[in-house]
């Protein structure tokens, strides 16, 4: 038996079986049984995900999927070829799977002390969330994908509703769920419409049909369908005007949940499904999305500047960071898309590290209010070191990972052929400056100056060995990813290099005019 054919199923089963096992374990007040169990399961999952980059065939034809498994699952009446259990990954999803595996044990460690009660519920939901996220990244059947996509909402909403910080938690959870669920319900209509047209839920087949313009002759229907996809994914990212749920959810969610709350799922889905099935429509909407990306960067950074609650600041900095990715991927240039995907990894890692650190401060001082802090640098040297490293990565200091992503994205923004791209790229670049301001200002206010009120009252302590174990992997990764980005880019580029002309098999448009020609030509071909 070759592991390559079953590795993805195994990846999904490990946390699932782990979750079931945790449910069956009896719960005792104050015992660490469930935390240890969850740690073991997530570590095992992480080790399994590492199988993928080692055995990934980088030379394989770009656009093909690897580690595939394709079994018929449900036959649907008289029509179409039904639903398949189709898994597989390519250069786009490879590192996202590993990233998901990597963040999980850290999430468990970060909850080690903060979650004392109802540990069984917490870790079970955490593992289910893990299953759903991995499922999203490896599903190649739209039905299966949609299943995991919706499933990912449930543990998250319950984690927020049950383990949220303030009395506002139920409201935040329901808001989060509704925001994501209603567009997803309409997404289901779009999926069913696609199935009615094409008789298949298989992504590679649909991509081929999209490239051949055989999905539907109706220009309007395809256009509406693509927008439905984009909105459903955009809410989850969140893209600029759809971010209404973010602040409350981030404020309430426990550290382990907030680490995986925003960003990668939605962005991956846009790249995989919006771009894959609607190559033409995605390009038509790209100028708008570039604009929204740039607006999101500036807006998120400006709001973050005035927030004095650390979690709210983090929420808007998340918005700014994911907007960078949106800007990058919608340039449809090799640099922009490569950088965008790389930045998804960065954003997830930096955001996660930042939230872990905020959690540590909260654990010690019980507040996220910046005004209550101050002058911590001398008392907590290790924590401040970590904070500075994360900040430098977030603001894109050369040699650290954030720089690579931002640089590629902004270069892509300058290269692209969409109208007003230079204007928007310049606007986005100012976002980098604002980003540096709010992060550095935050460092100054929390760690320097005179000793704040809370630190006077409460005796803090520096990093414990467990907390060192949570943070050092991040710090090392930031440096390695900044210096040796080709390790990651090698896989990402198998996807990104095709991005400019994916969905247009006959053309390799390097510039503006030819691209326009492709769009017009394809529209006439309909």
């Amino acid at each position: 038996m070759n592991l390559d054919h079953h590795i993805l199923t195994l990846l999904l089963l490990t946390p699932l079986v782990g979750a079931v096992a945790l449910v069956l374990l009896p719960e005792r007040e104050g015992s660490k049984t469930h935390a240890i169990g969850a740690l073991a399961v997530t570590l095992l999952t992480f080790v399994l995900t590492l199988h993928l980059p080692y055995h990934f065939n980088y030379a394989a034809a770009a656009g093909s999927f690897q580690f595939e498994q394709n079994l018929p699952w449900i036959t649907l009446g008289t029509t179409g070829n039904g639903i398949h259990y189709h898994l597989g990954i390519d250069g786009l999803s490879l590192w996202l799977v590993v990233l998901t595996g990597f963040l999980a044990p850290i999430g468990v460690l970060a909850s080690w002390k903060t979650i004392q009660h109802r540990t069984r519920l917490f870790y079970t939901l955490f593992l289910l969330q893990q299953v759903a996220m991995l499922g999203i990244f490896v599903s190649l059947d739209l039905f299966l994908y949609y299943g995991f996509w919706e499933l990912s909402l449930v543990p998250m909403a319950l984690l927020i509703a049950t383990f949220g910080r303030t009395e506002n938690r139920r409201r935040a959870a329901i808001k989060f769920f509704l925001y994501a669920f209603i567009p997803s319900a309409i997404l289901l209509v779009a999926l069913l419409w696609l199935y009615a047209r094409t008789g298949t839920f298989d992504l590679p087949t649909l991509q081929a049909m999209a490239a051949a313009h055989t999905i539907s002759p109706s220009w309007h229907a395809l256009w509406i369908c693509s927008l439905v996809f984009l909105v459903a994914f955009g809410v989850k990212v969140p893209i600029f005007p759809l971010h209404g749920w973010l602040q409350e959810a981030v404020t309430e969610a426990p550290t382990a949940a907030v680490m995986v709350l925003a960003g990668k799922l939605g962005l991956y889905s846009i790249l995989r499904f919006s771009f894959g099935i609607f190559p033409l429509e995605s390009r038509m909407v790209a100028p708008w999305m570039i604009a929204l990306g740039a607006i999101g960067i500036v807006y998120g950074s400006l709001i973050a500047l005035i927030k004095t609650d650390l979690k709210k600041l983090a929420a808007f900095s998340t918005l700014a960071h994911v907007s960078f990715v949106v800007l990058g991927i919608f340039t449809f240039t090799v640099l922009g898309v490569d950088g965008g995907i790389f930045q998804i990894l960065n954003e997830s890692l930096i955001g996660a590290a930042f939230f872990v650190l905020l959690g540590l401060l909260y654990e010690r001082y019980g507040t996220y209010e910046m005004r209550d802090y101050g002058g911590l640098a001398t008392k907590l040297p290790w924590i401040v070191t970590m904070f500075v490293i994360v900040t430098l990565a977030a603001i894109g200091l050369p040699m650290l990972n954030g720089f690579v992503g931002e640089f590629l994205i902004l270069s892509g923004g300058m290269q692209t052929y969409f109208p007003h791209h230079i204007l928007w790229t310049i606007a986005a670049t100012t976002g980098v400056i604002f980003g540096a301001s709010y992060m550095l200002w935050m460092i100054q206010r929390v760690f320097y100056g005179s000793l704040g009120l809370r630190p006077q009252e409460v005796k803090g302590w520096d990093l414990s060995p467990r907390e060192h174990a949570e943070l050092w992997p991040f710090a090392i990764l930031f440096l390695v990813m900044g210096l040796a980005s080709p390790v990651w880019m090698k896989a990402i580029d198998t996807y990104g290099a095709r991005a400019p002309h994916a969905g247009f098999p006959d053309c390799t448009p390097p510039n503006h005019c030819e691209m326009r020609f492709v769009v017009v030509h394809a529209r006439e071909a309909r």
Partner: protein
Amino acid sequence: MSPNLLAVLPELLLTLAAVAVMMLEPMIAPGKTRRPLGWLAIAGTVAAGSAAFYQLHIVNAKGPITAFYATIQVDAFSVFFHLLIAAIVLVTLLGSLDYFEAPITHGGEYFALVLFGATGMMFMTSSVELLMVFIGLEISSISTYILAGFRKGRATASEASIKYFLLGSFATAFFLYGIALLFGATGSTSIGPIATGLLTTQTPRLALLAVAMVIIGVAFKVSAAPFHVWTPDVYQGAPAPVVALMSTAPKAAAFAVLLRFLFNGVGGYRDHWVLLIEVLAVASMCIGNLGALLQQDVKRLLAYSSIAHAGYVLVAFSSCHQDAISGVLFYTASYAAMNVGAFLVLTQLSGFDERVRSLDDFTGLALKRPGLSALLGFFLLSLIGIPFTGGFFGKFYIFSAAIQDGHAKLAIIGLINSGIACFYYLRLLAAIYARPLTDTVHRIAPRRVTAPAALALAATALATLGLGILPNRLLHLVERAVPQTLSTASDGKSQ
């Protein structure tokens, strides 16, 4: 075995068991437990279910059985509903064996009435003669009227029973009047002759009026808006296990009648009645979901949710795609699994005197009863339509068929509605998992779940999960059931 006997074998076994329960009931001293009668009823239901399996075997081998001068037709379609009703009744009986904490007088009648009701419902699904359908409808309705008021001495119970009885009689009158008018228009009350009679009728308007009246009668039974007003009050007042039964089994039977009547009987008038069905569907979905948003009482909330779910099923009636009809069958089955499950959990939580009623009473439930909370949460997720549950796949199947048939608007309305719906389900779910309010936790029954009830809960949960993950088996059964019965229906329209 003579075909007549074979055709009504499940109903016959149920009736025998029910009569036996009635006769044994007075022999048990007042104040003694009625559990043996419950076990007898369960044995009767199992026998009826096995008989239905036997019928399926015969039907598969030799084709449909017609009996009693072609008033009864047993085919894969009716056997499917026989099995479904038997399963619902079985699970409900298992779940309510220990429902009567302090044995009340004449507790055995409860079991007999459930069986009589099931007999009526089974008759509804196998009759192809509208008067026979009417008799089945009455048998099932009258039993349910009594069951609705079974918590005697409580104002809400009496309200439920009387309200249900008065409005229900009104609706059956509509149904009967519709049959009479159809007889006037076509000269028959049998579904086959009605279809042919409609082609040559001199009074098409009368026939249309008749069709509308029959639809209204059935719409009341499935609690489709605007004929839903009884539902919240009745569900609130009736005992929880009775609601589990009456929110699923009679509805399934009524949908079966509606399928046969609309597609086999008056399929020729599809262009006329389809608009009516669409209005009912949209009204039910919107009124059900919006009404549920305002509810504080959990049983009322689930009542409005059942109105909305009737709307989802009616969406399938609007398309003539064969998958839509299989979708109705699949949805009734998956809805039965999750809704019976949810009400059985309520039964376990609140007991006979219904200590746990409002959303606030559920706050912090998960800490006190983690197992039951997880089950209720799972059923709620299925009702929302979260993937990998039966509820999701049912919706998926129905809306898929609607879109295949060009009813994208209905599908969009339906799915937006399911988005609205998740708000009230989530409110309950979030309350269950929230930190407890100190004064509410005491109301939750500390009782252990008994073995039969645990079995019933496990069965519904497994069915809900199984229908979501591996629906193939039921889909095959459903797809076999549809073409045999409704071939005439889909022939005319699938061009």
